[in-house]
């Protein structure tokens, strides 16, 4: 197998001293248990693919795609190894060698055909002129009711958004290994969203607008926090940090301040902030390994239930979807459960 992407990270793979600190909270090794499942194992698989000591097979590819890219390993790594970059590079080389999953291919084809990951040709959010460019992103484009609510919240708070006829930020291409497609997509993105700065709705898009497109992106909760009045919801809530928020953007305090500003009592889960446990929805596993995703999300929802809070609040629509499903599953298993809400629902309720 040609390993052009991995070769660029050879030194990074040497920097990994294979200490296993990444085992500590890795959701995949926790659920599956083999050393191969943890970040150290995946960095080793990547190294083996690069040197040719390990033959590229579908099973090896499956292991490298069994990662939510939640980045917890990078928080714990004593050598600050950029594990997710290595895994993304390995995926890129594997995809080039013909080891991609059909579901991932379909998503990428959707982006190419329609500009969004779901292949939606209808609906979406209508464009409008305003003061501040808003990047909606695929997740929120496909949830128009939710998104309209968010836009209304912005209006209520005096933020007038410009909405473009945007296309996907391209992050799925980057993380699922379709890097050549991303090179082409980048131009299309730029034409559709020609702004140098933006407020954003999805944590992942926020990171990728910054890293992949050099756009000064700011998540809209940061903008909302500046103008949000005191509320009195009086609810007991716990908060799930989406990985791209707490670990990617280092946005840890703002959502908590919003929750408190809304008049809610915040109870932290056992793992939280930049050490937050993964929801199980990232890195493509939701499409390629539903069972693993479910197992990871059950662990997280049980942490939320253990707080005794009434509501689990999060700020990412993927986390919300996955955790809602987990909340339903634990209820079906006869365990205590919890209501899951995205933060805009609470803000909306408070502002009403």
């Amino acid at each position, binding site marked *: 197998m040609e390993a052009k992407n991995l070769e660029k990270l050879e030194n990074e793979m*040497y*920097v990994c001293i294979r200490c296993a*600190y990444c085992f500590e909270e890795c959701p995949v090794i926790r659920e599956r248990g083999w050393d191969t499942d943890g970040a*150290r194992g995946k960095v080793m698989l990547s190294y083996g693919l690069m040197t040719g000591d390990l033959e590229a097979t579908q099973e090896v590819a499956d*292991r490298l795609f069994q990662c939510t890219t939640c980045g917890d390993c990078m928080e714990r790594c*004593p*050598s600050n190894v950029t594990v997710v970059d290595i895994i993304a590079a390995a995926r890129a080389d594997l995809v080039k060698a013909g080891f991609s999953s059909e579901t991932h291919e379909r998503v990428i084809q959707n982006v190419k055909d329609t500009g969004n990951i779901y292949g939606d040709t209808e609906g979406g959010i209508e464009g409008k002129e305003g003061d501040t460019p808003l990047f909606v992103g695929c997740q929120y484009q496909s949830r128009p009711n939710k998104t309209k609510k968010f836009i209304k919240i912005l209006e209520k708070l005096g933020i007038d958004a410009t909405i473009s006829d945007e296309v996907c930020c391209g992050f799925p291409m980057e993380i699922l290994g379709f890097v050549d497609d991303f090179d082409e997509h980048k131009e299309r993105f730029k034409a559709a969203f020609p702004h140098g700065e933006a407020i954003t709705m999805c944590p992942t898009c926020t990171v990728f607008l910054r890293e992949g497109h050099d756009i000064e992106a700011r998540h809209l909760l940061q903008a909302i926090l500046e103008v949000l009045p005191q509320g009195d919801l009086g609810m007991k809530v716990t908060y799930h940090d989406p990985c791209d928020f707490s670990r990617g953007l280092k946005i840890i305090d703002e959502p908590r301040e919003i929750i408190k500003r809304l008049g809610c009592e915040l109870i932290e889960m056992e793992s939280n902030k930049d050490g937050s446990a993964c929801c199980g929805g990232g890195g493509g596993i939701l499409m390629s390994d539903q069972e693993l995703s479910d197992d990871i999300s059950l662990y997280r929802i049980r942490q939320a239930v253990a707080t005794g809070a009434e509501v689990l609040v999060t700020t990412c629509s993927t986390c919300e979807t996955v955790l809602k499903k987990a909340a339903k599953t634990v209820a079906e298993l006869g365990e205590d459960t919890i209501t899951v809400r995205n933060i805009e629902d609470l803000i909306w309720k408070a502002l009403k």
Partner: protein
Amino acid sequence: MDVDIERLRSIVGDENVSDRAFDLYVYSSDASVHQAKPDVVVRPGTTEEVQDIVRYANEKKIPIVPRGAGSGMSGHTVPIDGGIVLDMKRMDRIMDIKPEDVLVRVEAGVVNDDLNKALKPFGVFFPPTPSSGNICTIGGMIGTNASGNRAVKYGATRDSIMGMKVVMANGEALDLGSNTIVESAGYQLHRLIVGSEGTLGIVTEATLRLAPLPKFRMIGVVNFDRLEDAGNAISAIAASGVKPSMLELMDHVAIKAVNTALDMGLPDVEAIVMFECNGMAKDEVDRDMERVQEIFKEHNGSGIEVSDDPKEMARIYAGRKKLFPSLSRYKEGLVSTSLADDMAVPISQIAATIQKIHEIAENNGIIMSAYGHAGSGLIHTKILIDPSQQSQWDASAKAVDEVYKFIREVGGTTSGEHGIALSKAPAWKEEKADQLETMRAIKKALDPNNILNPHKLQDAPDDWVTATDLRYKVRG
């Protein structure tokens, strides 16, 4: 090697056996420079399963290597002769917490920090505090007699082991030690297992001695323009009767690494020492801290800062904490290798040893930093090399040789906490030359077919560089 995979599956279940190429590749290495593939990886869940696996391996003379997190730095779990790697992490039950008997009974795959989390509500803890405590297992700690930055006060794993269940090479499970704080005569077989690196038996359960969680602690930092003064101060503290719970030293290469990589602005001095005192009463901790500071001042220590505020304590300790990533990023193209990674010397020899390490590094054209748990005479080094260059390995091999020769000359020992396995074995065999035959006789008596982690310690190859493949591709 002919291993009956079906037989192993019938013992532990299909899902706990793997001979898939990618699993064997991953289980071929640990945190060392070594690499060698097993034939199969097995994940037992009970002592009985371990017994059945060992009986089979013994009958067929198949090597068997117990493995916890695989965080050993000298090739401990690298299966040099292939065979079975026994991943013990499924055996992770904390069975019996008994503060009234100051003990806890656990399975061998329990992770150190998980245990301490479970013990916290009882106001007790398991005192060996390896930095790798977040992932290392009790079995691995017993295997290497692990300790950490608080060994200066609490000792090593061996000091907190009361007993254990061990599966011997013939498959028999023995209950060694006792549940009591004192136990008189007779061979202390549980102590023999501590530090045996998986070569004498497979620990499946352990009874551990607990200590009360200290209620108060305080951290401080002090700078020394001369390394020798730092060494003398640490010796004076050791002799003073005060028992700090931590005494960590960083040399000037380590300081430079942190400053270069992270711009932390640590002072440009020959040594920085971080210290901690803890205890059950505040006045006791205050008194110890004062005495320690007096001694530092008497030995020309300057810029002393102390605090019991959690945020300030974290800031003071940040330099030491950031040392590891900094060494990995010291210079583009150089990587930090686990070579001559740990040693211990009589405390009075710390300064001379660090000075010698720098001299050896310079003479061999490599970079070595020295730091460590100075209060227990323990020194860690990291060798920074371009691992793709054969010449760098030759230079490292020579430096390792010279360092350990010096260690022996000053009455030190080859490993203070990380263990021996493969890469430290040549030096260790020189150090223990008079005991090797006795050790081999013990090994032969307990493991006549040489199945348990063979060719480690006294039986390891004489040249660590060629003992196995290296985990790095060496090109020129």
